[in-house]
């Protein structure tokens, strides 16, 4: 687990991308990790073609949840809602590029769960349990 905290992870943790809020979001979702109370909210602006034109996330949490969500917002920008809804845990694992221990998997998946919930308009399943 100690090799998880690489420079780019710490960079996303300390300088999260797409952090904040949108003026008039078209879709919003938020969720809490029951294990630790970490909370993430994601707001989307969707264009005429159903693509994610803009995205913001907010919340507090550990480096794993913050960095993986920050990277995920970059992945999601420009995707259609359908494509975002179909993202699997592998998308997150590829982004972070390093193994996640089972005890911290929920931290890594929280942002993806929230993104998928925003995309489908209802609470999505935990990506690691699908």
């Amino acid at each position, binding site marked *: *687990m*100690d090799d*998880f*905290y690489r420079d780019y992870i*710490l960079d996303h943790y*300390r300088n999260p991308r797409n952090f904040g809020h949108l003026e008039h979001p078209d879709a919003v979702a938020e969720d809490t990790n029951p*294990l*630790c*109370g*970490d909370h993430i909210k994601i707001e989307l602006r969707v264009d005429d073609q159903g693509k994610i034109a803009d995205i913001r996330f907010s919340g*507090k*949490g*550990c*480096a*794993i949840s*913050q960095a993986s969500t920050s990277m995920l917002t970059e992945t999601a920008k420009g995707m259609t809602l359908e494509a975002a809804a179909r993202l699997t845990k592998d998308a997150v694992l590829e982004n972070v590029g390093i193994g996640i*221990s089972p*005890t*911290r998997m929920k*931290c890594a998946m929280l942002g993806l769960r929230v993104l998928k919930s925003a995309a489908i308009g209802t609470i999505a399943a935990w990506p690691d349990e699908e």
Partner: protein
Amino acid sequence: MSVSAALDASKTASIIADFPILARKTSRGKRLVYLDSAATSQKPNPVIDTLVQYYREYNANVHRGVYEIASRATDAFELSRAKVADFIGARSDELIWTRNTTEAINLVSASWGAANIRSGDAILLSELEHHSNLVPWQLLAERTGAHLRFIPVDERGLLVLDDLDRLLDGVKLVAITHVSNTLGTIVPLDRIIARAHAAGAVVLVDGAQGAPHLAVDVKALDADFYAMSGHKMLAPTGIGALYGKRELLDAMPPFLAGGDMIRRVEYRHTTFNDVPWKFEAGTGNIADAIGYGVACDYLANLDMTWVREHERRLSDYAFQRLAELEPRGLAIYGPRNASLVSGAISFNFADIHAHDLASILDTEGVCVRAGHHCTMPLMDKMGWAATARASFYVYNDERDVDALIDALEKAAVIFKL
């Protein structure tokens, strides 16, 4: 090293040898540095051996069989009740077996609460409470129309008692922790209980973190109820106890209903068994209950005054060593005074989230808890999202504190502090 510190060290070394898990290595080959006893304690050989012996030699249901092993099981089960009762200065007919502290508190809220709490009554808690000593009272208040009040906590994690008499006005029940599991704060129960009684209130003490670490005498405290968990005091999981004053227990309706708690049953009517069995429906957790008595023997043999002094000394050392990291962003929460806390210290390190910190410490074999510690309202009030918590017990020593500091140094390197 002073003479008393040297004596303490040799006693701790012999205690450590009684805990087989402490001789194990983690998968990374690290020594297990267990600093999470506030969550659950480790178990010494005599307790583990008791479980094995029960199942190998005299496993039988209690209070029923006439044969030899059934009477041996019943004797051991009831002897253990007497030991656990004696450990907190109670009589065995005032001690009810439960699964844990949570169930003990729920027993009181369901039974005593339903019989005594009415619409408009007040229940006084403190802002330190664990969810276990909060949510049952929220539900009772919702069911009955009673309302909750809270003794405030200050920024150091100490209760503010200045307004206690006003807060106690019209209060039927005070439910309060003995020791905060998040900050380690020892609550001045003697003052609170005396004034609560003067105001006509009944007092329940959540002793989950009290009984394991402090010498408890429920009669001297004059507590009306005292709830505790075996697993936090060297006993197995799945067994806890509720002490209650006999006259209160006698007047209370049963909690769960079924076998064992009855005297005579007709199709339409039942007379109930005497206290404590009136509150023990169904087959209990026999092996673990017997183990609880052995755990109390072990602690009594160490002497609870020594246990307290050992933990005070260790907390003092931990405060000192943690302070070395303060210039690099370490923040210590709660009363920073070993005389005011019982073996639990909450902290954060710069901008490292408590979960990341716990993960990094884990790679060094150091086990700490991270999160809200089942005290979300307290965390919200203090403005902390999460903290890391190191907690100590009889088998911890200075080496464990040093290992914690070394692992924190490693975290500082990884996070480039």
